[in-house]
């Protein structure tokens, strides 16, 4: 309790954080959740920092890049497809087949259930999807239970509690009131609710007045940090801003596929050097990609 009466002239704190500072929230061994659209500016910064042994709740090529860069010990993913480049993302496939990463085998309904349990402060939630499958066999954290009311067979999913969730969105005010354009990403709100802390990188910071003009559009109230990252989802899409850069993702898939199949990492290492390690900041990255390529991606 505050002792006695006080009238303070302190003002409201802003939640804008620089990308390098926000990346320090993620450290070795943590559970990191990454949203879709993928928060690539932050992911590149985390790779640059050399974070290791992450458990990643994520999917697709963004997760694959983290694996390719050696940051991942365990995946919690229901789908790691290769985009247009193939049925399975190449680095994920190779690392899983070699036993270099552990796959916490799950499925969309099950992952959602575990995230919801964490968000609701519950040790578990039950789910029916997956009864009869191999999922509880290959993932011993999933328990087959008999429900206490009607005696039905269900799967008890433990709470999945990321230390940090990182998302990409359209806009936020300085206080972390985030508004998506075209709806929040697939699991993003589940990730945000389940995580201890959430960082949202946004295309643009807008005024608090603009947020208050339509509070119903606010999808995340008070994200713990917002990071300014125009084009920050590149090479993936950002609704209302740009579409996926398919030529660029193909470049990655080719490099990663070569590394996975032939054990020749030279193309992949070149890719990582050019687009991840050498740029010191997100701005440097965008320079490497080039503004002509960026503006060619505008939605129409």
């Amino acid at each position, binding site marked *: *309790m505050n002792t006695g009466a006080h009238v303070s002239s302190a003002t409201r704190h802003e939640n804008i954080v620089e990308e390098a500072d926000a990346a320090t929230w993620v450290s070795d061994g943590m559970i990191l959740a990454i949203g879709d659209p993928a928060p690539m500016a932050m992911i590149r910064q985390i790779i640059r920092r050399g974070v290791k042994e992450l458990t990643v709740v994520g999917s697709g090529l963004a997760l694959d890049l983290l694996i390719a860069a050696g940051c991942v010990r365990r995946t919690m993913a229901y789908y790691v497809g290769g985009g247009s480049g193939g049925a399975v993302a190449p680095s994920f496939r190779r690392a899983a087949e070699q036993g270099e990463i552990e796959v916490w085998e799950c499925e969309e309904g099950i992952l959602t259930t575990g995230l919801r349990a964490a968000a609701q402060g519950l040790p578990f939630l039950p789910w029916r999807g997956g009864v009869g499958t191999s999922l509880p066999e290959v993932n011993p954290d999933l328990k087959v239970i008999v429900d206490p009311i009607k005696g039905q067979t269900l799967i008890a999913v433990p709470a999945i509690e990321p230390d940090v969730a990182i998302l990409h969105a359209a806009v936020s005010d300085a206080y972390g009131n985030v508004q998506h354009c075209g709806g929040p990403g697939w699991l993003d709100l589940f990730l945000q609710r389940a995580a201890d802390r959430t960082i949202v990188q946004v295309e643009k910071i807008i005024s608090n007045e603009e947020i208050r003009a339509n509070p119903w559009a606010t999808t995340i109230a008070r994200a713990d940090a917002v990071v300014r990252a125009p084009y920050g989802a590149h090479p993936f899409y950002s609704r209302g801003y740009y579409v996926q850069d398919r030529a660029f993702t193909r470049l990655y898939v080719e490099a990663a596929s070569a590394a996975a199949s032939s054990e020749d990492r030279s193309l992949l290492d070149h890719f990582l050097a050019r687009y991840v390690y050498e740029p010191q900041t997100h701005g440097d990255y965008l320079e490497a990609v080039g503004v002509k390529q960026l503006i060619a991606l505008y939605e129409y």
Partner: protein
Amino acid sequence: MANDNAAEGQSGPFDPTTASRQEIMATFLANDLEDGEILQIGAAMPVGEVAVRLAHFSHGPNMELIFIGARMNAAHLDVLPTPEFGWDRRTVRWAESYSDTGHRFDRVKDWHRRVFFVGGVQVDPYGNTNLIGVGDDHRRLRFRGPGSVGTSTLATLVGRYHIVLNSHTARTFVPRCDFVSAYGWGQGGADARTKLGLPGGGPKYCVTPLGVMDFAPDTKRMRLRSRHPGVSVEEIQANTGFDLDVGREVPTTPLPTPAQLEIIRTRADRRGALRH
């Protein structure tokens, strides 16, 4: 700071000695609230509402205020009207987000920073409260209460809460609630909540028009912490249906400072709901 206005003193337009009991209650609660906390305010809780606004305007620019589904921060505004229109659209006039789109209770992770106020038709020495009703048989209550609202869940999960009652009588302060809708400190003891695995911090204060009670750290039994100006310990005990733990000396509940009273009367409670 508060003392900046001390020069206006006791005889100014916001003379603390003119504070009503409800204004004193609101001030006490406001002083407990810390910047950065999340305040969920229920309907028909004018003392709590004013307390939250006073804290927000005086020392809580990072507080988040949740009225019904509307989450707002109004520290930059000169005034925040009471949402007198209930659940109509104007409740969200100052909102930054609106949480009520079908996923309520879907993020309780920050509820350790959340504070709320609970009422009751009964309260017992361990801060358990009852909104269900009075009687022996649930199927035929002598008095049917309005129902538990969201208090069972909030009391389970929030960082702390305060019991705020509009009247202080032996009918309300009972040795044992006929029914418990919000679990406070159970049968007492410092482990009353942890042994049930309840993450929330439980009730901290019980504030009434007569005084302020808290709970002894070891037994979690209710004790008298302060009496409002003009109220005697005997009057409080006589209106409490169980033995209140009373210390050797019971201080008077602090009055608002002139600066606080100014905020109450000009910004936090413009309609004067607490004035009398």
